[in-house]
């Protein structure tokens, strides 16, 4: 494994470690692990140049199962550690694995800043709307009324949408997929990897023990076609088992509405065409909730901006070009000196 001499393309299993995976049987994390391993293989990634950084929580065990470099850090701080890794070595391919508690509760500040700075990393946020590792307390993405050991009468605070948060933070890439949708996920992960800058991917992930089936109303095989819409840049926003539903700008307001093609004279020409570069549209898409509206999957938003470390490195190069060879002796002797 990890033979440095071979440059042949690795297979997904080459990215698996010999460590026993310690997630609960049936956990959505298994599917994501498989999806990521496949993505790295498809991308032709080199294990030695790949680093997985995580915080604390079920999702954050992820690095132990990847035969790459991995750093399992402390609760909520993976984005900050990853920023340091990228500053020290911008050539490394850095993936952050976090969850709704790790990334949006204790680590909300760092997630905000890694996104707004546009550090060139992929952030995979496993959203299961619950705390798993601490045994089932509600999380910042849990719906109102979630009963948990810490909220026996149901939670009362409003939940947060990870993707809307990311857009608000100024993320330059925001996408979504679902743990079980193995055909869809690798494409999204590849797009995230291809983006220069911070790529945020919200992955709906089922916690089989503490929050089972919480996403079934839009992820169950029987409803996927009608309760999800896969957004594709430049294509009209169409969905439905019979491809007869779509999204158009609501009349007289800043919002989207779901319509059926052929009803009330609606044609494909009336539908919105997805534009990845439009943050307002991306926010409207991210905010859609089933069953009233389909849940949007795919690349909601993507825009090109210089990555943070690229700009930092450019400033360093500029400073080096502008001065002579760095000489500490000269620096110490600069300014006013005198001889005794």
């Amino acid at each position, binding site marked *: 494994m990890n033979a440095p001499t071979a440059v042949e393309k690795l297979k997904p299993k080459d990215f698996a470690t010999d460590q026993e995976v310690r997630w609960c049987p049936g956990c959505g994390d298994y599917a994501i692990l498989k999806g990521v391993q496949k993505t790295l293989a498809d991308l032709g990634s080199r294990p030695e140049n790949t680093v997985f950084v995580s915080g604390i929580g079920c999702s954050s065990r992820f690095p132990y199962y990847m035969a790459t470099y991995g750093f399992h850090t402390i609760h909520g701080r993976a984005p*900050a550690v990853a920023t340091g890794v990228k500053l020290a070595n911008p050539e490394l391919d850095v993936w952050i694995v976090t969850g709704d508690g790790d990334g949006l509760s204790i680590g909300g500040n760092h997630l905000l800043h890694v996104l707004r700075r546009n550090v060139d990393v992929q952030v995979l946020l496993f959203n299961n709307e619950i705390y798993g590792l601490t045994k089932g307390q509600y999380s910042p993405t849990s719906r109102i009324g979630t009963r948990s050991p810490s909220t026996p009468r149901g939670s009362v605070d409003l939940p947060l949408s990870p993707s809307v948060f990311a857009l608000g933070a100024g993320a330059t890439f925001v996408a979504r997929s679902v743990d079980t949708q193995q055909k869809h996920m690798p494409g999204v992960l590849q797009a995230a990897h291809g983006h220069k800058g911070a790529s945020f991917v919200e992955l709906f992930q089922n916690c089989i023990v503490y929050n089972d089936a919480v996403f079934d109303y839009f992820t169950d095989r029987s409803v996927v076609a009608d309760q999800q819409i896969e957004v594709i840049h430049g294509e009209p926003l169409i969905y439905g088992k019979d491809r007869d539903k779509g999204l158009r700008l609501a009349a007289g307001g800043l919002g989207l509405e779901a319509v059926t093609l052929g009803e009330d004279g609606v044609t494909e020409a009336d539908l919105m065409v997805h534009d990845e570069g439009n943050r307002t549209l991306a926010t409207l898409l991210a905010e859609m909730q089933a069953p009233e509206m389909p849940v949007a999957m795919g690349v909601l938003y993507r825009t090109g901006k210089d990555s943070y470390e690229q700009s930092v490195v450019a400033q360093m190069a500029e400073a080096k070009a502008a001065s002579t060879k760095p000489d500490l002796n000269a*620096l110490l002797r600069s300014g*006013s000196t005198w001889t005794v």
Partner: protein
Amino acid sequence: MRATKAEEFSPVGAERQTLESVVVRFAGDSGDGVQLTGSQFTQATALAGNDLATFPDFPAEIRAPIGTTYGVSAFQINFGARKIMTAGDQPDVLVALNPAALKVNLGDLKQGGVVIIDSGTVTDRNLRKAGFEANPLEDGTLDDYIVFPVDVSKMTLEAVKHTGLSQKDALRCKNLWTLGLVYWLYDRDRSPTVDWLQAKFVKRPEIAEANIAALNAGHIYAEAAELPSGLGGYTVEAAEIAPGLYRTVTGAEALAWGLAAGTQLADLKMVFASYPITPASNLLHVLANMKHFDIMTFQAEDEIAAVCAAIGASYAGSIGVTSSSGPGVALKGEAIGLAISTELPLVIVNSQRAGPSTGMPTKTEQSDLYQSVFGRNADSPLAVIAARAPADAFECGIEAIRLATKYMTPVIVLTDGYIANAAEPWCIPDMDDYEPFPVSFHQETEGFQPFQRVPETGARVWAVPGTPGLEHRIGGIEKDYNSGHISYDPANHETMTQTRAAKILGIANDVPEQTVDQGEAGGKIAVVGWGSTYGPISRAVNNLRQDGVDVSHVHLRYIWPLPRNLGELLGGFDKVIVPEMNSGQLVTVLRSEYLIPAQGLNKVTGQPFKIAEIMTAIHEQNEA
């Protein structure tokens, strides 16, 4: 009056009284440019060949309401023809630029000392704001002092009239007028200040010209004025100082350069990640201007992110450095534990300030020794070193990087607000005299496991991402001693805990034995200090030894682990006194480590020790 050439300012000497040393305090409103005045006077004094020490003391408020006591900023300098150890217990001369400055500082002035006050600011309104019920120039308050009232405001306006500056801008030259006056009193050369002004205001020559005019006018005024009896021109001869090339340096500069030097000696790049906090921010500012030295600075979103980014950088093969003050270091605690557990090099600078909580951010204290040595969850040992003076911070910066990289451990460098901001003359070292300690990253894939150790040091090998064949996972979970895999095995945890502790204690074999700074290596009294108490302890012990008192001064750089011979050394004294600007932290460590009846001498006023305070304490012990 306008002149541009340095030679035209050579000081005139006429029947000047010779002094061995003088303490001058400049004080004024925080907008009066007092710190600038102080630093220029420092520069001129250094160039005159005096030894010196300074103490800048400024309020937390950036611009407190003008004329109020809490907006008073001060700068004290002690300079002389002899070795100067501290900024001085009591000023001989107080230069007060407004009544509030007089109010705040008069109590510190030596009996019979000189008060130079801007009488133009002594108005009813300003007196009220300063809390004077009557005019102190008239009501006898200053009877015990030599008072020299000068309408600095008016003189300054006259001196700069020809430049056409607005009244507001013109009054901002008051500090230079005052500086000119004090330059005359102590026979200082004005030309370096003239050069400095011309360079600083190269794009605004009218400002440079006005300031130079004010400086010269103050100087001429002093020369021509009828000075009050007891005040005149003075000469302070050059001190006997070891030959070499000198400069003045603040602790923040010296530490920044020391960290840069250590990074070069280790053949690494530095990522310096920090979050602004008083009084630590200057380190970030100095290093942010050193990009051409391969120093990358990162202003993080908070203290935790700063230390985490530094850890990430060390993981990826740079030396990660973070810096803060006590409250910020408290926030970094969990992450420092991660660096201990993953055995990654990390340097944490703590510019200590008075606490707890926000405390007094601009006031100095050395009360984070416990926090440094013990202040984390669980058994989490690391190395702690402390700078004793501004220039010493340079050596501490180098040593911190050496220890962090050699032992794969976090190292805390303790400094404080006083060291960070104070300046002293520094005999500039030659980098060629330092032995490099280049880091070599682990490359061998055969038999590799991430927690395999270098036998001599017990340090983990440093294998960095990007190295083929060494892919591995580390984290804060306990790992197996032999394989590095996650382990919850009870015996293994005990082994790992002991291994981490032994590695840190082993550093004591790699650092010099503790020496005695002054006096014998045994006897009646040892005064043991650490950090910025060096100056006052040193002078106090020196004075008492001249009086024949059997007292020695031991000053620690290595706080943890303690020097290997320290217990034996201290055991050779009848009494051990430990002066600290806290309620007794090192003294507790010494008592617990060596079972000796060491006694604390404690001060927590936010101000450095006075020499007299330490002398009194030693006397009491000597008599007892």
